[in-house]
C-alpha cells in the first residue's frame, strides 16, 4: 500500500535577480527539527550555501496526518548570491536532510511584490519585498514621490530574510508634502522596480474617528490571512476613465470579547458592485483571523441600484500594543478604517450568531472546527458548543419529509455517508458541505469533514465524508451539520446518522447508487474507485507505523475465535486444562452468549487470566488489565485449537501482543465491529489461519470493488504485525 505523502517538501517560488534571491515553498519537518532547520541551495556550478529557517509557518492546507508532521511554509529572501540558473534545494536539520521537490529548480527573474494596504491624507502603509538596489516609491499623483523604507516587522507576513524580526512593512508619513496639506483628491500608488504594486484613491482628509459610513481610503482587497501564505500579484492598471465610486460603508453591529483574548465583530459592508468581495481585518494586524461573509438579502433589497452588501463575522486576536485597535475594510477598490467601539458593543456573542446569516455562521463554525481564530468562539463558558450553542439549537433536524428519501450513515472509522433522493426540481447541481459534531465530555466538538466529490444523478446525490483530523480509532458517534446549496439557495440541517460498520456504510453507498434513480454504472464505479483510493490513502497514512518488536515467548495470550456455538463452549470446557498448561492468558472472542459461559469456565479456576467479549473493545482487555505487551499472541479458531490439542502441540506466539491496538484500528476501518472477525482476518492475512471471512455477497461490480478494497487493507497492513517481515 502506498503512502499518502510522496512529498516531504516542495519549492513553489524560486526567483533570482537584482542581487536577491527569493526561495519559497514548504516542508514537512518533525517538531524536533525546527530549531536547527536550514535551507540549503546547491548548484551544479559549485555553490552550496545554507541559511537558517526561523520563520517556518504552519500551513492550514498541510495539516499533520497521524505520524506525518504538518507542512510548514517559508519565503526566504537572501542577498548576495552569485548568479545561478539551476539548483537543488533541501532543508537540513539535526535529524537529517529533506530534499525538496522538484529536484532541479530553475529560478525565474526576481519580481518585487507588495501591497499598499491603505493611505489617507497623512500617511500610507503597506508592505514590500524588493531588491534593495532597485527603486521603491510611493507615488503621489501630481505631487511627487517618496522613497519607501521598510522598517516595520509584520508578523502576518510570511517573508523572512534571516534577521530576527524581518522588516517588510512600511508606514510613510506625508508630513511636509503637498498631499499632507489636503489639496484635492490624489491617487497614491506603490511602485517598485517600475512595477505598480498597489494604488489607493485618497479623497480628502481622513475621518478615521468618524461614523461607520466614513470610508475614506480605498485599496485592493488582500487575501484573508488565517495562516495560509498569501502573496499579492502586481495590480493591473485601472481603467482610464472609471467614474469615482460611491464610498463603501461599514455597519458594525457588534464587537464582543470572546475566549482566548479574541474579539468577535459582526456587521455589514455596503459598496458599489464591482464583482469583488470585501475584506476586513483588525489593526494592528493580527497574525490570524477568521472572516466569513454572507448574503443579507433583506438589506440588499433596500439598497440603491448598483450597490451591494455583505454581512460579515470576524474573529481575531485582540490587537496588542499601544495603538488603538482599528477595523480596516476594503471594498469596491476603496478602504476605510474605524476604531473599535469597545469590547461589549452590541449583542452577546451567542445572540450575534443567532441573528447572523446562517451561511455565515455555518462557515464560521467550519473555521472554528478547522482550528482558525474562530475556535475562540467554542470556549466552554459560552455553552457546550461555545457561542454556537444557541444557533445550533435552532438548526432543524433533517426529516425524511424534506426530501423524497434521505439516508445518513456514520461509521466508527470517522466516516459518514449520505444519500439524497432529490426532487427533480432541485436538480443535480446540489452541493453538500458537511461538518461533524462530536460529543466530548459534555461539550460539542465540531470537526470538518474531508469530502470526496459527490456522486450525482438527476435525482440522487451520494456524499462521503471523512474526519481527517482523527488520530484515534474508533471515532465516537457523531452528528452531522450540513449545508445544502442548490439553485442559488442554501439550507442547513442537522442529522443523526445511523451507525454502521465501515464495510456496511460503503455497501449502503453503492447499493443506493444502484437504485433506478442512481447514476449509470460506469459513473458509479469510477466514483467509487476514486473514493476508495482516497480512503485507502487517508487511513493508510494513519495506520502505518513502526514495525513491532519480536514477541517474547511469554506471556502468551491465546485469542480464541469461532466461539459462536454452544458446542464451542463445551469444547472449551474440555480443553481448559490443556489451554492453561500452554498459555498465560486467554481471550475469548465471540457473542456474549458464548463468551460469558466461556469465562465462567476459566475465571473460577483462576489459573490463567481470562478476558472476553464481542466488540472490538475486547481487544483492549488483556493489555489494559496488565498483560505485558512484550509478550506474544497466538490466534486460533476453536477447531484449530482442537486440532492443536489433538496433536499435543505446544503453543508458539505468532504475533506481538503490542499489535492489538493496531488490530482494533484496522478492524474499525476495514472490518466489522466484531473482535472475533478481526482476529480471524488478521490470522488469515498473516498466513496463520483459515481463509478470511468475506464481506457479504459480492453481487455486483461495486460490491466486488469494495470487498477488494477492504481485503486490501488486511493484506497490505499484515506485515505491520509480523516482525520478521518488517525486519526483512
Amino acid at each position, binding site marked *: 500500500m502506498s503512502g499518502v505523502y510522496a512529498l516531504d517538501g516542495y519549492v513553489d517560488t524560486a526567483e533570482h535577480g537584482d542581487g536577491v534571491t527569493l526561495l519559497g515553498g514548504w516542508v514537512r519537518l518533525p517538531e524536533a527539527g525546527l530549531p536547527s532547520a536550514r535551507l540549503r541551495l546547491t548548484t551544479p556550478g559549485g555553490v552550496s550555501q545554507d541559511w537558517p529557517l526561523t520563520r517556518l509557518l504552519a500551513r492550514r492546507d498541510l495539516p499533520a496526518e497521524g505520524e506525518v508532521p504538518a507542512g510548514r511554509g517559508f519565503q526566504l529572501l537572501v542577498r548576495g548570491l552569485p548568479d545561478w540558473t539551476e539548483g537543488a534545494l533541501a532543508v537540513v536539520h539535526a535529524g537529517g536532510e529533506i530534499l525538496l521537490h522538484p529536484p532541479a529548480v530553475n529560478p525565474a527573474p526576481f519580481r518585487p511584490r507588495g501591497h499598499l494596504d491603505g493611505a489617507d491624507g497623512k500617511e500610507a502603509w503597506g508592505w514590500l519585498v524588493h531588491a534593495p538596489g532597485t527603486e521603491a516609491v510611493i507615488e503621489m499623483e501630481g505631487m511627487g514621490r517618496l522613497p519607501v523604507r521598510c522598517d516595520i516587522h509584520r508578523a502576518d507576513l510570511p517573508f523572512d530574510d534571516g534577521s530576527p524580526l524581518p522588516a517588510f512593512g512600511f508606514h510613510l508619513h506625508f508630513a511636509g508634502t503637498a498631499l499632507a496639506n489636503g489639496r484635492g483628491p490624489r491617487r497614491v500608488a506603490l511602485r517598485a522596480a517600475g512595477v505598480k504594486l498597489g494604488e489607493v484613491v485618497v479623497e480628502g482628509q481622513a475621518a478615521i474617528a468618524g461614523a461607520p459610513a466614513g470610508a475614506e481610503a480605498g485599496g485592493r482587497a488582500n487575501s484573508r490571512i488565517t495562516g495560509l501564505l498569501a502573496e499579492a500579484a502586481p495590480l493591473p492598471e485601472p481603467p482610464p476613465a472609471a467614474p469615482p465610486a460611491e464610498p463603501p460603508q461599514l455597519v458594525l453591529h457588534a464587537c464582543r470579547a470572546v475566549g482566548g483574548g479574541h474579539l468577535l465583530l459582526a456587521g455589514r459592508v455596503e459598496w458599489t458592485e464591482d464583482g469583488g468581495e470585501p475584506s476586513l481585518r483588525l489593526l494592528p494586524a493580527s497574525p490570524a483571523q477568521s472572516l466569513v461573509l454572507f448574503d443579507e438579502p433583506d438589506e440588499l433589497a433596500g439598497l440603491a441600484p448598483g450597490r451591494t452588501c455583505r454581512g460579515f463575522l470576524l474573529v481575531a486576536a485582540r490587537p496588542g500594543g499601544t495603538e488603538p485597535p482599528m477595523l480596516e475594510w476594503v471594498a469596491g477598490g476603496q478602504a476605510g478604517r474605524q476604531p473599535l467601539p469597545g469590547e461589549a458593543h452590541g449583542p452577546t456573542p451567542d445572540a450575534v450568531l443567532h441573528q447572523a446569516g446562517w451561511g455565515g455562521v455555518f462557515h464560521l463554525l467550519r473555521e472554528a472546527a478547522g482550528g482558525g481564530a474562530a475556535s475562540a468562539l467554542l470556549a466552554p463558558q459560552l455553552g457546550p458548543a461555545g457561542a454556537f450553542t444557541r444557533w445550533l439549537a435552532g438548526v432543524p433536524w433533517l426529516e425524511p419529509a424534506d426530501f423524497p428519501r434521505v439516508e445518513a450513515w456514520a461509521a466508527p472509522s470517522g466516516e459518514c455517508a449520505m444519500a439524497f433522493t432529490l426532487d427533480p426540481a432541485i436538480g443535480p447541481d446540489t452541493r453538500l458541505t458537511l461538518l461533524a459534531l462530536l460529543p466530548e465530555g459534555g461539550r460539542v466538538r465540531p470537526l470538518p469533514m474531508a469530502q470526496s466529490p459527490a456522486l450525482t444523478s438527476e435525482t440522487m446525490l451520494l456524499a462521503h465524508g471523512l474526519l481527517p483530523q482523527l488520530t484515534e480509532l474508533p471515532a465516537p458517534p457523531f452528528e452531522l451539520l450540513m449545508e445544502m446549496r442548490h439553485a442559488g439557495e442554501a439550507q442547513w440541517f442537522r442529522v443523526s446518522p445511523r451507525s454502521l460498520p465501515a464495510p456496511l456504510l460503503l455497501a449502503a453507498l453503492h447499493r443506493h447508487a444502484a437504485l433506478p434513480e442512481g447514476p449509470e454504472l460506469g459513473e458509479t464505479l469510477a466514483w467509487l474507485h476514486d473514493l476508495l483510493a482516497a480512503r485507502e490513502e487517508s487511513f493508510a497514512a494513519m495506520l502505518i507505523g513502526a514495525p513491532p518488536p519480536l514477541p517474547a515467548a511469554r506471556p502468551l495470550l491465546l485469542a480464541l475465535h469461532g466461539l459462536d456455538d454452544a*458446542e464451542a463452549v463445551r469444547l472449551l*470446557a474440555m480443553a481448559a*486444562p490443556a489451554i492453561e498448561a500452554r498459555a498465560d492468558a486467554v481471550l475469548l472472542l465471540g457473542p456474549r452468549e458464548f463468551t460469558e459461559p466461556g469465562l465462567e469456565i476459566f475465571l473460577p479456576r483462576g489459573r490463567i487470566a481470562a478476558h472476553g467479549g464481542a466488540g472490538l473493545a475486547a481487544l483492549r482487555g488483556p493489555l489494559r488489565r496488565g498483560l505485558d505487551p512484550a509478550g506474544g499472541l497466538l490466534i486460533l479458531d476453536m477447531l484449530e485449537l482442537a486440532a492443536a490439542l489433538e496433536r499435543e502441540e505446544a503453543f508458539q506466539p505468532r504475533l506481538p501482543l503490542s499489535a492489538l491496538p493496531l488490530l482494533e484500528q484496522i478492524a474499525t476501518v476495514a472490518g466489522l465491529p466484531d473482535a472475533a472477525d478481526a482476529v480471524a482476518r488478521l490470522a488469515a492475512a498473516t498466513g496463520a489461519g483459515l481463509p478470511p471471512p468475506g464481506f457479504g455477497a459480492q453481487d455486483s461490480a461495486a460490491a466486488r470493488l469494495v470487498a477488494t478494497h477492504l481485503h486490501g487493507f488486511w493484506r497490505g497492513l499484515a506485515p505491520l504485525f509480523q516482525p520478521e517481515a518488517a525486519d526483512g
Partner: protein
Amino acid sequence: MAEAPIAVCIIAHAHPAFTKGGGEMAAFREFTTLRAAGHRAILVAAAEMGPAVPGGRLLRHGPDEHLYDPYGMTEDRLFWSDLAAREALLALLVAQPVQVFHIHHLWRVGLDLVAALMEARPDARFVLTLHEMLAICAHHGQMIRTRGRELCHASAPALCANCFPERTPRHFALRRATWLTLLNRFDGAIYPSDFLRRRFRDWGFAAREETVLENFLGEELAAAPRAPAEPGLGQHFAFFGQPTPFKGLDVLIRGFALALAREPGLFLSLHGCEREEVLRLFPALEAALEAAGPAIFFAGRYDAGDVLGLMRLSGWVVVPSIWWENSPVVIQEARRAGVPLIVSDIGGMAEKVRPGLDGLHFRRGNAPDLARVLLAAAAPGRQEALAASQADSIGREEFLARLLPALAGAAGG
C-alpha cells in the same frame, strides 16, 4: 481374575432398579460380578428420584451403591447446568477409595463431570465403555438418518447438518472436537462389539487401550443350564423387545405375512409389545395383522428373569432391527437360551450371529428377503442343526479374565 483385588467405581447413567436398558444392566452386572469375585466395586448411578432439587440429590442406595439425580443437567444430558449438583456429585466421586473409574455412558453422567473428576483424581485410571455411538451421531447415537430410515455409514459435519438443518456443519465439527478432547483423556475404552470399535476408529478415536468385551448377562442367567432345543419348533418364531421405530417390527410382520401365505403352519409370537402399540406406531400393518390372524400372537410384557424360558418356547428368535444394534442383549440371551437367531445383516447383529452357525441373516429392512429366510428356517431339521452349532454367551470367568486387565491397565491393544 487379576492377582490382587482392585477397587473400581462404576459410574452408570441409570440403575436397573429404575430402568432396564442394556447399558445400565451391563454396569450393574459388572458391579455385582466384581463384588462376588472379591473386588471392591462401588456403583454410582443416575436415577430420577422424585421432584428436582436445586443443587442435586445424592442418595445411598445400598452398601457401596449410590444414586444421583440428573435433573441438574442440560437438556441433552451431556453437561451439567446446575454446577452445585455437579460439584456435589464430584465430591462424592473424588472421595471414593478406588484406583479405577469405569464409566458406562457419558449421557446422564456428563462430559464436564468426568473432565473435572479426571483433574481431581490424576492418580486414578479412567476406563469408558462405549455402549453406543452418541459421540459420533447426534441422532441418539443411532447413525440412522433423521429423514427416512436410511443407515448412516460414517459421520461428517456436512452430512450431520443435512440431518439437522437447523444446525451448521461447524456445530458438528465442534461437537466431534468436544467429544474427542475428552475421550482422548481416557486410559482405556471397552467396546461390547468390534463393530462399535471400528466405528469409533473410523470416526477418529483410537483409545490408548482398546478392549472388545461382550456384556455379561449376569450371574443368574449365566448359571442357567443350556437346555437342548425343543423338537418341532422350527416353524415358531419369536420377537423380544420394545415396539420402537427402529426395531423393525414392521419388517418382521410384513415378512412373516408373506411367508405365512406360502407356508400356513408358521407362527410368530411377539414379546414385549401389544397389538395396539404396534398399530399406533405402524397403522399400515393392520391388513397384514388381519391376514395373519391367530398366526401372530402378542405376548405382552415379560419379566427379564423369564426370558430364557420364553425364548425356548420358540424355535427362532428374530432380531429385525433396521438400525445397527451395537450389541443387543436379546442376541446374547438367545445364545444363552440355545435358540438360533434370524437377524438383520448389519452392525452388531451381523457380528454376533455367525450365519450358518448361530443363525441366519436377512437383508436389513427387506420383508421379502426376511420371508425367504423364514421359509428356509422352517425347513425340517434346520433349526435343530443351528441350535447345535450356536455359541453360548460369554461366561463369568471369561468376562472377568478380560475385564480386569482392561480396568487395571494390562489389556494391551
